């Protein structure tokens, strides 16, 4: 269980990205984060694994306590898989080598100089198989399609044996079919392994299809928290500050604008 307690984040340039926010995430629950561009979704996700430090308030993790201090953050990150929009792979390394980066948190600094153990490589291959890419294990990552690369990103998270998966717009640069496959995969992993998954999305349709719970941010405040069924037009207008059709005027990712992605 992860408890966000009166967390607020003010960036160095004075931007308040998150107003004091309290919210709790539970194991086995697939939470979708919604919000217009700049609402604070990435900030919240990053704060959940210490990539962004809270200005006030704290994030508490079961079994670790408050997420502060190098040791606490490191042991939390070890069990927290992060999936990025641009999948953040190293293009010239193989799929296997990229996935093994997920094991680094389990190694001491000196251990790092030795090669990965066979057991770890097998763990990595298990993860690669789970995302359906075993045939590509020894391919260079930059030879894969965007959807496949994103699945490698998921395998890298899986090999951490995580109890939390954070995904920041994991499907923003994918076509609708690949996007559906990637989200389906994340959903299945969340359910099969009883992991808490927190996924930010810009597509309401996907949010409604996969979410157990939707948390919506607007200007750093939680403006909705509940099951997708309760998300009506009125709520959507509150989240995006407009009617549900053409919800976003400013769009960083043109591919998120595909017609039909908004319910």
């Amino acid at each position, binding site marked *: 269980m992860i408890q966000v307690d009166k967390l607020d984040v003010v960036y160095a340039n004075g931007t308040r990205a998150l107003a004091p926010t309290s919210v709790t995430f539970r194991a086995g629950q697939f939470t979708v984060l919604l919000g217009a561009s700049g609402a604070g979704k990435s900030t919240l996700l990053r704060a959940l*694994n210490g*990539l962004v430090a809270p200005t006030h308030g704290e994030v508490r993790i079961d079994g670790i306590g408050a997420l502060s201090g190098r040791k606490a953050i*490191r*042991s*939390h*990150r*070890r069990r*927290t*898989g*992060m999936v*990025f929009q*641009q999948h*953040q*792979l*190293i293009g*010239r*390394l193989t799929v296997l*080598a990229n996935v093994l*980066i*997920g*094991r*680094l*948190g*389990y*190694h001491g*600094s000196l251990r*790092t*100089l030795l090669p990965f153990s066979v057991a770890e490589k097998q763990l990595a291959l298990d993860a690669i198989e789970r995302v359906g890419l075993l045939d590509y294990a020894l391919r260079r990552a930059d030879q894969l399609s965007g959807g496949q690369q994103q699945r490698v*990103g998921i395998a*890298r*998270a899986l090999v*951490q044996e995580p109890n939390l998966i954070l995904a920041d717009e994991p499907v923003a640069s994918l076509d609708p079919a690949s996007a559906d496959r990637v989200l389906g995969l994340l959903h299945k992993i969340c359910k099969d392994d009883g992991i808490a998954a927190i996924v930010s999305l810009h597509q309401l349709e996907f949010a409604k299809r996969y979410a157990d719970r939707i948390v919506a941010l607007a200007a750093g405040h939680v403006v909705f928290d509940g099951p997708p069924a309760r998300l009506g037009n009125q709520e959507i207008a509150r989240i995006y500050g407009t009617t549900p059709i053409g919800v976003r005027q400013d769009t960083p990712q043109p591919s998120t604008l595909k017609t039909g992605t908004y319910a």
Partner: protein
Amino acid sequence: MALVENRHLDILADDRRAAFRHAGLAGVIVVVCLIALWITGFFDAQRLMEGLPALGQLASEMVPPDFTRWQHWIKPLIDTLAMSIAGTVLAVVLSLPLALLAAPNISPNAAVYHICRVVLSALRSVPELIMGIIFVAAVGFGALPGVLALALHSVGMVGKFYAEAIEHVDPKPLEAARAAGAGPFQVITHAVLPQVLPQLADITIYRWEYHFRASAVLGIVGAGGIGFELIAALRVIRYDQVSAILLTILACVIVVDAIGAWLRKQLK
């Protein structure tokens, strides 16, 4: 209409001004070049004319090259090769940590960054010949001072190129490694270095090729290798041996460069 015309004339006037500026700049560059040639005595026709016969004389003494002492050159050539490799190894070992600290995206803080940059440029600015003289004075004749001279000067160059390669790595995989719990050292070994390894290898191989040529020169100040034989032949005014040694060095340089090119291709 008149307004549109005026606008066109304005643009043409700007265009003319830009052309004048370029012509002016080109003129200045030509004048500077001519002055440099004049200062260094290039327009002293008489001296050049007098020099020509002497040059012809030297050239005629160089042919045919005299390879009879070739057996005496094998050991020095092996020394030169060993110096170039050892100098490269030493340069790499010293450059890598310095380069990481001199790369703004990896360096732990601004002070360390600036100190490392200064160290690198200081090493770079001492020519290896001067380093060679200093190290010969310190540890005596032979290959060792040569290696030290090559390596230290190279750290300045190689470290700078390494740092530039490291500076331009894609930051996203670094963040991914950090997010998975990797410490700073692990981020370097598993996210930074894998990205830049081909570039670092490229820089290193070029440097090795350069070291082979440079170590031939270093022999002149007593730092071992084939350069030592070269200066010996010059001292006894045996220009036919000098030309033979130069040809031998040329052949070796061609071979070394070919090996380097092949190695680089393997890394692609």
